[in-house]
């Protein structure tokens, strides 16, 4: 279960939101949509424990995984190296299979710095799926992916995160549909 209760968050003089509450029961899939700058990423950061609210409470039960808005990969490592850095579960074979399912079979031996933007994005998705988690937070995970890659990546996420809580931040209603989520507008 993830929840924000009467949360206020400010960055300097700017109040992102005040008295904001959100409850996400376990196993539910939600898409968070809204205009740029309305605080969607801040909601994810509060739920992931990367930010503290100025007022109110952020609660999370269980473990969290996250696809950041930026890839945040180690460029000198291979895709597998990036997964191994965080992986709390799975054998090498399982991790390799995860990368293959995300369409990275020809990139396994390359360092991340050699990969295209779309490939890096899929490595970031694989990394988030490689850890133990009860809820996965996805901050525009399909940014830079072509429609086919978007569809296949969404499929892999849904298979891997079956029964887990999914919170997706997106601008695209089609992505929310692809992930089979209910939409909450900020």
């Amino acid at each position, binding site marked *: 279960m993830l929840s924000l209760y009467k949360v206020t968050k400010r960055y300097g003089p700017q109040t992102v939101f005040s008295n904001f509450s959100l409850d996400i029961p376990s196993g539910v899939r939600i898409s968070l949509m809204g205009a740029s700058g309305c605080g969607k990423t801040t909601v994810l950061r509060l739920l992931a*424990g*990367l930010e503290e609210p100025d007022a109110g409470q952020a609660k999370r039960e269980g473990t969290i*995984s996250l696809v*950041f808005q*930026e890839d*945040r990969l*180690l460029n*000198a490592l291979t895709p597998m190296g990036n997964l191994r*850095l965080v992986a709390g579960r799975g054998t090498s074979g399982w991790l390799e299979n995860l990368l293959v399912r995300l369409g990275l079979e020809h990139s396994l031996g390359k360092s991340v710095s050699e990969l295209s933007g779309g490939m890096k994005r899929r490595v970031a998705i694989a*990394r988030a799926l490689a850890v133990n988690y009860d809820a996965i937070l996805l901050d525009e995970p399909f940014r830079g992916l072509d429609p086919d890659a978007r569809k296949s990546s969404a499929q892999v996420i849904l298979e891997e995160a079956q029964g887990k809580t999914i919170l997706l931040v997106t601008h695209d209603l089609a992505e929310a549909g692809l992930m089979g989520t209910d939409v909450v507008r900020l």
Partner: protein
Amino acid sequence: MAAVFWLAFWQILAMALGQEYLLASPLRVLGSLIKLLVEPTTWLASLRSGGRILLGFLGAAAFGAALAFLSARYAWVRDFTAPLISSARSVPVASFVILAIILVSSRWLSTLVAFVIGFPLIFGNVTEGMRRRDSKLQEVTQVFGVPVIRRLLYIDLPQVLPYFKSGAINAMGLCWKSGIAAELIGIPDGTIGERLYVVKVNLYTAELFAWTAIIVVLGALSSRLIACLSDAAAHALEKQ
């Protein structure tokens, strides 16, 4: 070309002064240097002084880097060590040397002084490196709960190593300068400092220049060694 000009200028100045104890000519210095280089005692003194200075430097590097990592992680370590760091930065070398002569044997004087001089420099640089680490990668380690050793090897060390290298190269040069200065005050047996003391008392200017050249070369070689080792470590971290 510039070097030839300045050597010629030095030679002419020495000839014009005509007082060898005031300014020895480059040719006389070269003669003294060759004479020193064929004497086994020169190598022994260099080895002895170099070994002790290097020991102090290694202690400074290990302690300074470890303390910087701990300070970045724990605020109480940073607060607790702040007075120690500012003392090491501001207290004159001579004060340390005199205190060290009272407290320890003059044999280990250069080690202690090299440590005290090198430590704040390396601490400062590694602290700066830790401060400038990519905060986005730090968040990755936080979210995914990356174990400390992996975090250190894959994320922290590759980012901090260039800062360590720069601090260590500067520290190495200063360790040599201050270590030899300490030996000159403490005069431990069979060291470069002792040989310089004899040179000073007898006004052997040519030998002073020759020893200076030896110290500069030893310092430069040590700094080069540090740079090579740091590069090798960075390469190994990249390849792991």
